[in-house]
């Protein structure tokens, strides 16, 4: 099933959230970004590996990256988000716009926020996060995906 998501971001608490459906704009310190439907994107991939005997690869660490772009700078919370979250550890949630459920939830990842304002194009805010970990399951959880 095809899903469309909104992005919610807050300063990392290290505690997670018990009910992922309680993620709302202004609740639990979360801020909602208004997004176009092409993004966000989350990728979980191997990072540090070692090739063992027989060419078999042992994965030592994984990397969880996410990227979300908002073209709705005026109505969104881009300015606030930049001040509060740029270069800080954050929690990021994606919430399905159809189902209202939240997933996945990435904990304690470092955010980079980029704001581009152009004369002949829509202003654009990009939130990128990345974290390297021994086990991606430690930093990302899925409530429901497919």
């Amino acid at each position, binding site marked *: 099933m095809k899903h469309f998501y909104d992005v919610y971001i807050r300063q990392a608490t290290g505690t997670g959230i018990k009910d992922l459906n309680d993620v709302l704009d202004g609740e639990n310190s979360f801020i909602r970004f208004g997004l176009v439907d092409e993004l966000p994107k989350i990728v979980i991939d191997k990072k540090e590996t070692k090739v063992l005997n*027989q*060419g078999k*690869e042992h994965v030592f660490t994984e990397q969880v990256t996410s990227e979300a772009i908002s073209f709705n700078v005026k109505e969104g919370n881009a300015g606030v988000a930049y001040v509060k979250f740029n270069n800080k550890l954050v929690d990021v949630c994606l919430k399905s716009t159809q189902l209202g459920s939240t997933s996945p939830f990435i904990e304690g990842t470092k955010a980079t926020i980029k704001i581009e304002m152009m004369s002949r194009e829509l202003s654009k805010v990009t939130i990128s996060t990345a974290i390297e970990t021994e086990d991606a399951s430690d930093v990302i959880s899925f409530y429901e995906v497919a």
Partner: protein
Amino acid sequence: MAKLMVDKISVSGSPAIDLTIAVKGSVTLDKDTADELTKGVEYISGEKIDVNVEVIDEATAKYNSLRGVINTDVDVTFYKGVDKLFAAKGVRLYPKLELSGSAVPKITITGGKKFGSSETITNHIALPV
């Protein structure tokens, strides 16, 4: 030549992980290390198997199961109906997950192994009958 259509790709484990929704993939057997001999003749001393499987729209449960086989040796078997088509044996896999707001979840499973060309090939790969 008839086009092969895969119905299921199974990753061994306890229990086995059956991938059935929108699956496609390949198993490639190729030379890995070769020494050039006189007159430009190649001596192939090593071979390799590369496995590449793509699954879409079957994320949460399957992805979690696939994470359970990271850093373990598994067999990957391709099926048409109940018939085995071909398999890669004793390979290591990594499932890469991509979630996007505009597409269904996608898991790309890659991996493989290497072995000496003098070894019995059927220990590493099962070819189509």
